[in-house]
């Protein structure tokens, strides 16, 4: 990956994030509805409201407010929360983000690890029963409301069968591992506590499954479609005619090509993960940024809403950058044209 490419990509990213900051600023300042009044309740006096407006800097001119917002975002200082316990939004985000990342990463791995082989199988058995089954799974996967799927998984597996815990990230009386990465799974392994690792895993599985279902279906379908496209390519025929084993042609030669085509969509899936995390975390009481965001939204926690939106935007953009870089790394043609 050339330096120029990285620099250009970061520049594009900065432009989009700058735009996003403007958009959020406009939305939060222009749309009707007064979060301050809401936060303080219907009985707040005008003085209280005025005091809070001053505290939050809402009494300043719009350009000044905007500069404050950008400054704060860069420094990680988003002001105070307007709902109890009125903590620092920046610290809240730092607390809740790792849990969200852990859930999202695990779900992503689950979706790819299951979706790719299922997609390959569906393509190899085109129009036979594995393919038909994958089609049904795919339609269900994209159509199923994630809040409903999450509740149903919770209802059946956790409440009825009692196999796995229904709520939270760790048992009520269990101490979390020493914080190194913020990922309980990794931290428990670093602490060489296998028991704790499996304990945390039991909490992670259900929300991750709910989060992974739809992306899994999409990845499966995309891999299937790309694999079918690759099947007709000349290089497949030549490789087979030259005596390469079928397994090698399918899982190395074709899949590598098919997967880079699939990757372009994985960027969009990241957006899906982020959005759905809001819902899944709420259902499973997962102490992550999504649940924090939903609470902020429900109680009109002004600063928290702005901060969560920006963080989501940054995470989304960063994930897409990673995907782009990965795509370039997987497809030498792109690298070659980049070099020229």
């Amino acid at each position, binding site marked *: 990956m050339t330096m120029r490419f990285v620099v250009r990509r970061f520049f594009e990213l900065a432009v989009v994030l700058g735009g996003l900051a403007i958009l959020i600023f406009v939305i939060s300042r222009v749309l009707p509805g007064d979060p301050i009044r809401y936060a303080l309740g219907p009985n707040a006096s005008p003085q209280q409201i005025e005091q809070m407006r001053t505290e939050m800097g809402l009494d300043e001119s719009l350009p000044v407010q905007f500069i404050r917002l950008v400054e704060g975002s860069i420094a990680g200082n988003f002001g105070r929360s307007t709902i109890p316990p009125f903590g620092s939004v920046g610290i809240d985000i730092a607390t809740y983000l790792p849990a969200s990342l852990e859930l999202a990463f695990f779900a992503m791995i689950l979706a790819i690890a299951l979706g790719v082989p299922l997609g390959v199988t569906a393509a190899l058995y085109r129009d036979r029963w594995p393919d038909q089954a994958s089609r049904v799974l795919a339609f269900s996967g994209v159509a199923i409301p994630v809040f409903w799927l999450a509740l149903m998984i919770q209802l059946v597996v956790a409440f009825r069968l009692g196999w796995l815990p229904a709520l939270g990230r760790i048992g009520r009386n269990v101490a979390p591992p020493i914080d190194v990465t913020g990922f309980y799974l990794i931290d428990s392994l670093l602490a060489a506590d296998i028991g704790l690792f499996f304990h945390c895993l039991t909490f992670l599985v259900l929300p991750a499954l709910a989060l992974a279902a739809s992306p899994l279906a999409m990845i499966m379908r995309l891999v299937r479609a790309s694999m079918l496209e690759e099947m007709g390519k000349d290089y497949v025929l*030549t*490789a087979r005619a030259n005596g390469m084993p079928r397994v090698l042609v399918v899982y190395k*030669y074709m899949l590598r090509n098919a997967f*880079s085509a699939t990757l372009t969509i994985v960027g969009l899936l990241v957006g899906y993960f982020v959005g759905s995390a809001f819902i899944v975390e709420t259902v499973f009481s997962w102490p992550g940024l999504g649940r924090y965001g939903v609470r902020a939204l429900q109680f009109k926690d002004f600063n928290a809403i702005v901060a969560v939106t920006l963080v989501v935007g940054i995470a989304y953009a960063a994930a897409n950058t990673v995907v782009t870089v990965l795509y370039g790394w997987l*497809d*030498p043609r792109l690298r*070659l044209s980049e070099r020229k």
Partner: protein
Amino acid sequence: MTSSAAETEALLDVRGLTVGFTDVDRSSVTLLRGVDLAVHRGEIVALVGESGCGKTLTTRAVLGLLPTPPLAVRGGEIHFEGIDLLAADGDAWQELRGRAMTLVPQHPLSSLNPVFTVGEQFFDLLSFQGQASLGPVGYWRPRLDRATRARHRAATIEALKSVSLPDPEGLIERYPAELSGGMCQRVLIAMALLSNPRLIIADEPGTALDVTIEAQINRLLLTKVREQGAAMLYITHDLGIARELSDRVFVMYAGSVVETGRTGDVFARPRHPYTRGLLDAVPRLSSAPIKGIRGVLPDPKTLGSGCAFRFRCDYAIAACAARTPPLSQLSGLHASACLRAEEITL
């Protein structure tokens, strides 16, 4: 097919090969209508015909690489060195492909995998060619073994040198997109010749290239095939190349062979109106006007029995529609599938 001696000696012997598929409306469509074809050891055989007549399909069937489904072999036999491949299981084919019979493909630029270097693709060939199955351990073992890597690298360089490619060491690191069509085709020829195959199937290897490059590639193929004592089945629509290259020729029309014989005989005295038409359609560097064949290839969906060429034939009679004329021997190796081969003068 033509004599009993040929039957026992043939390297590749295809008899009555029938290939078709079932269309969306459940009707059955036949694409290859009983192809008879034989290639003997060390012989160069040309398979000629218009685009769409089933030449490429025949080669894919011979290689056991028909896209099934939707296509399916409906009948016939494919013998290679005496073994009936259609009766044997799929593994028999896998052992032959790449080692005993290989392919030089039609589109060199897209026939190498775009995401791997030339060296990587040679490495896989050298390590796994002909294997029926492969697991992760089997895949990584040669990659992690320094001696194997060195040996394969040397073999790759040797192979690239043998097809006169410059700078083989540098070429190993290159991706196919960095190579020209002619270079890709040389790489592909090197791959096809890697384990001294007995039969090389060249499917219009020069069609996608410039005329001068095409000539170089053909010369290279011919030299290598003669050098290794292999046989070659050369598919082309170019009669000039067929005449120049081959010992024997098969003329295909609408999914079956309509004429065959020694190249010289067939070209000097064609015994099927279609062959005559093809010869007349070859542009020459003279002022004589080119005669084409009227009409187009019939649609295999609606083509019933009877001679498939009768719609375009000046010599067709009512009997031509009654049944499909078989390929019948005229003299020596010369055979024609025309009912009137004996009576008409072409």
